[in-house]
């Protein structure tokens, strides 16, 4: 089956490994992600104001183009798939808002006239994790595993945008299981830890890295304390903050022995024996290859 896929800006720059590993995994699981044509930035953060329709135009344009793309794909469900959890949240919230307020949708559609687009409110937004859980199923993931991740103790970091707010959450907000279930089906060990959705500091990295650092220290120390040797994430910004700031904290002498940060799809690609180049580990700030080699998960003879 083919799915319309909205990348968002970071998947083409810092998070190439996330996108390419996800596409490779989706093909192997027969739930292929096909990039939609002519997409634009979703706006990154959803506006929580009641009166700012301008901030809602970009997501609606994405939804209307995705709707056209689904028709081209044939046999595809009326859904657009995201990988970045910030895109997921923004698109889901705006989608729900315009469905609830047809007057707002009419005004926004008026703005889309120049692009010859109309959004009918006929799309659903899904995160790739939801596709893996609901369409593919954990047992089918487990069937494709050729290189079980023995020795990996993984703390699943959801961050805030996958679980908040009500309109955008993909799982139970206080006790999610989707990432853990995937980790288990890959043959790795799950770490039960309380900091799975403690905010990483998000966009404060631009001008207040002290806020981000104080969060990263808490999150990483807790992960280590509970025995994790790696973290998985689903958001390029969480990934950057946790990855890069661990290196910065080491330079500052605050925290030693950084632990690697993976996108969940990268671990799936390794467990499923897909070519390693899709993971783009060279973009990481903490080298994840060291741990994988130490555990004998890569570089083995076939």
């Amino acid at each position, binding site marked *: 089956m083919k799915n319309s896929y909205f990348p968002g800006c970071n998947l083409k720059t810092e998070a190439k490994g996330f996108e390419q590993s996800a596409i490779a995994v989706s093909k192997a699981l027969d739930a292929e992600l096909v990039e939609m044509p002519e997409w634009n930035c979703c706006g990154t953060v959803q506006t*929580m104001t009641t009166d700012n329709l301008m901030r809602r135009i970009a997501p609606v344009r994405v939804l209307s183009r995705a709707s056209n793309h689904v028709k081209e794909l044939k046999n595809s469900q009326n859904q657009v798939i995201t990988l970045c959890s910030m895109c997921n949240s923004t698109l889901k919230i705006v989608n729900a808002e315009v469905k609830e307020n047809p007057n707002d949708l009419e005004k926004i559609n008026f703005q889309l006239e120049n692009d010859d687009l109309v959004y009918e409110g006929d799309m659903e937004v899904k995160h790739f994790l939801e596709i893996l859980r609901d369409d593919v199923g954990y047992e089918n993931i487990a069937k494709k595993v050729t290189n079980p991740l023995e020795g990996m103790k993984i703390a699943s970091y959801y961050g805030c945008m996958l679980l908040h707010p009500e309109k955008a959450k993909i799982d139970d907000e206080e006790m999610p299981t989707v990432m853990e279930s995937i980790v288990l089906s890959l043959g790795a060990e799950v770490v039960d830890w309380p900091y799975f959705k403690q905010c990483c500091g998000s966009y404060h990295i631009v001008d207040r890295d002290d806020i981000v650092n104080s969060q990263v220290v808490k999150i990483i120390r807790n992960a280590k304390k509970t025995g994790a040797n790696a973290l998985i994430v689903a958001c390029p910004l969480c990934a950057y903050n946790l990855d890069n700031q661990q290196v910065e904290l080491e330079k500052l002498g605050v925290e030693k022995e950084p632990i690697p940060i993976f996108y969940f799809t990268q671990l799936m690609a390794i467990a499923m024996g897909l070519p390693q180049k899709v993971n783009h580990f060279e973009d990481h700030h903490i080298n994840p290859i060291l741990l994988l080699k130490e555990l004998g998960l890569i570089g083995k003879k076939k």
Partner: protein
Amino acid sequence: MSYDYIEFGDTEKEFTSKIEEISGQNIFSCYQCGKCSAGCAFSNLMEKTINHTMQLVQLGKKEKVLQSNTHWVCASCLTCTVRCPREIDVAAVMEAIREYTLRYEPETIERLDLPEELLKKIPNIALVGSFRKKSEL
């Protein structure tokens, strides 16, 4: 007994109702349980706790609200929103205070001067997010 020391004149009312209008929330729903502040990951960095800010908005104390760094430290993680027993979108109230400043008092915002190397390094979602929350862009 007189309650003259609590002033709630037109100026106060105007601020409170503007925040309510931008956020779409009923500020007076808040009964000061403090769950928002207790669960906030950034409470220790805020000059005023969130529930204190909520009360100041109820009372229309514009200067006190805007002087505090509370709404700028908020990273919109929405933990307060999903936990509020009165179902107030607390993060939307913080957003409304930011928006109020950006719309009506933009001269109080500090302009960012970001070095070139930082701009190259930081993910674009962080830049767009930051500009959208902290500037009128």
